[in-house]
């Protein structure tokens, strides 16, 4: 089964929603402007007296409902993949993400070590590229949100719960940040994610921790 890619799911939906929106806007703009140009500066007594066409309006509403159904079908399909199917994938690595004011702690339970994004060292989150990575999100104080803009995905870290999300990365360096206002230093609650080859990831993790538990 192909890896669920949040970026691809987003771009796919974006590529359908946005052109439709632009088309609708252009259509209404043109019709309104045309109506204004055609019907301006006529004497008041020439104004039409009709004011209703319920059959036409009903058909139009039915057409709109079909558009809504089409968009919902696309959204539900993508949402099922991102939220449900992704979490069923076998994860190559699990990272526990602990959000706190105003830093991120990434723990690799399989390797027995943590890195912290905060003022001490500004250590990056390191993940293997091309594999499913599972994140268990929680917070120790207020609500934060774990967001990597390039992956087109974010999820809240809420105190008192652990929420599971699964992401996949291509090789590269990605900026991450808190996306839920969390108080005074919220703008500084940033991190960097390094997605490296699985081999490099393994080497890095073993050098940091006690090595993978069998």
């Amino acid at each position, binding site marked *: 089964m192909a890896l669920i890619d*949040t970026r691809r799911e*987003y771009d796919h*939906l974006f590529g359908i*929603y946005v052109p439709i*929106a632009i088309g*609708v*806007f252009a259509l*209404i703009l043109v019709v*309104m402007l045309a*109506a*204004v140009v055609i*019907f*301006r*500066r*006529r004497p*008041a*007594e020439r*104004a*039409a007296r*009709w*004011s*209703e*066409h*319920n059959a036409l*309006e009903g058909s*139009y*509403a039915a057409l709109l409902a079909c558009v*809504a159904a089409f*968009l*919902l079908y696309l*959204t*539900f399909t*993508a*949402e099922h993949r*991102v939220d449900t199917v992704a979490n069923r994938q076998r994860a190559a690595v699990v990272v526990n993400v602990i959000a706190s004011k105003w830093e991120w702690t990434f723990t690799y339970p399989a390797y027995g070590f943590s890195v912290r994004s905060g003022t001490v060292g500004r250590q990056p989150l390191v993940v293997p590229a091309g594999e499913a990575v599972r994140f268990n999100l929680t917070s120790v104080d*207020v*609500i934060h*949100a774990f*967001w990597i*803009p390039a992956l*087109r*995905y*974010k*999820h*809240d870290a*809420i*105190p*008192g*719960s652990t*929420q599971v999300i699964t992401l996949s990365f291509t090789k590269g360096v990605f*900026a991450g*940040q808190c*996306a839920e*206002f*969390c*108080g*005074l*230093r*919220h*703008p500084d609650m940033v991190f960097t994610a390094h997605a490296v080859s699985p081999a490099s990831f393994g080497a890095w993790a073993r050098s940091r921790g006690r090595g993978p538990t069998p």
Partner: protein
Amino acid sequence: MGAQPGEGADPVSVATAPPARISRMTGWLGTLTSTDHKRMGLTLGGLSLLYFLLGGLFALLMRTQLAQSNMHFVSDNSYNELFTMHGSTMIYLFVTPMAIALAVYLVPLQIGATGISAPRLALAGLWTWICGGLIMQQGWFASGGAGRAGWSSYAPLSNGTNTPGVGQDLWVIGVILAAAGMAAMAGCVVATIARRRAPGMALLRMPVFTWTALVTVLMVVASFPILVLVMVLLYIDRHGGHIFTGFTGAIDYQDLFWFFGHPVVYVMFFPYLGAAAEAIAVCSHKRWFGYIAFVASMMAFAAMSTAVWSHHMYTTGGVTNQYFAFTSTLLLVPAGVEYFDAIGTLIGGALVLRTSMLFALTFFLQFLVGGLSGVFVASPVLDYQVYGTYMIVAHFHYTLFAGSIFGFFAGVYHWFPKFTGALLRERLGKLQLVLMVIGTNLTFFPMFFLGNDGMPRRVSRYPTHPGWGTLNELETIGAGIIALGVLVFLVNVWTSLRRRVPAGDDPWLGHTLEWATSSPPPPLNFDRPLPPISSYSPLLDLRHEEMDRGGEPAEVSAAR
């Protein structure tokens, strides 16, 4: 700006009007104690307008801080106070109360009533709201600063540990009083519509604006008590109550808050839609198109507004995203009907492009950007990216500012002659429109790109990504141009009141009953018998009858 005492001092008793006692006191004391719905409406609207200027000032300070990536114009703490108080001032103290002010002033006139029901309750509501606003703003003088947990003040960020201090307490109390006051006034409007319609004014003959006002006040009555409740609970929580604790506490707060918070979005939209609709119909010399469908679409909108709240919570993992995506996306059906009706009104009309009409048309076009981006963010997968970013800021400013505020100005230019008896200057009005259209789109359109590109909202500093600096600079310039437009409006009001061009009773050939009385209306609203009411535009019916008898319609339009 108040009603002129003495004018129409001998009102003809209208219809079933119960004997009403209206304070004739003049001056400040009269304004503050009058139970005349027109004076209450003007007081509420006038104070709301002052809060618009205050909230706008906060926005200008924020935009100055954001002009470049790492400005040190205000501190982080001040910035957090500013965005909290900008949102709170605009929502609790301007757009919502202004919507209610329009309803309080206009609904009794439009349905041929001599006053508002339960006027002393309405006056008490007005005072409660005034106290709420003043208390909220007093936070600026508290040590530690004003409220600074956002206009939605999510728990547990807003609890006593994470946001200590009197300023946040004053914010909570202010919201409680403002919401309770507005709920009381809205209840009076509901009662007025239920009990005081003139003979012949069946529900389905009520003007379009009155219908938008009715669905608005119904939503207020249904949802504002929830806000009062959640704020009381938050106050207890802040003082050792431990109410919103753990995961369920955090989710419960958001569920309760947005159960108010989404209906209020439409409260801040419908009356302005109604104002724009009246302006378009009158300036087209044509009845509003598709009345029944429009009324049905608004009722559907209002009902669904109570079933979409958790689309603000897609990323929490605490709600059923599919359900809220379903209800939220379906909103495009009633919204689409409203556009159909606006276009249907224009087609076949005899259009006069005066300022009110231009603001109304711009309202529809700019709101469309907000509406279409609303369909976009109703999709959880798309919202996972743009939630909490400038994309959302762009979306709701296109609905609230580019939409509602333009609808508000359409209403102001349309009804100012009725409120004051004087016409506003058309040239200044058009200058204001041009400035505001340029400023609005320059400020808010780049935000779509910034948000999609990863710029979070509610940050005083941002990384120096390529392009971000330029876009933010453009936005700051745009905010300045908006401020210039608002300044032109104030000059227009000042000039028009100082050197009055008398408006007469009905300068635009209006369709509805407020144009069948003097400007401003006398204390009991109507100084002559009401015309027969057999549709939602009784004065247009009269004109049509006159035309059919071969007479020319009285063209009294004083403005171009």
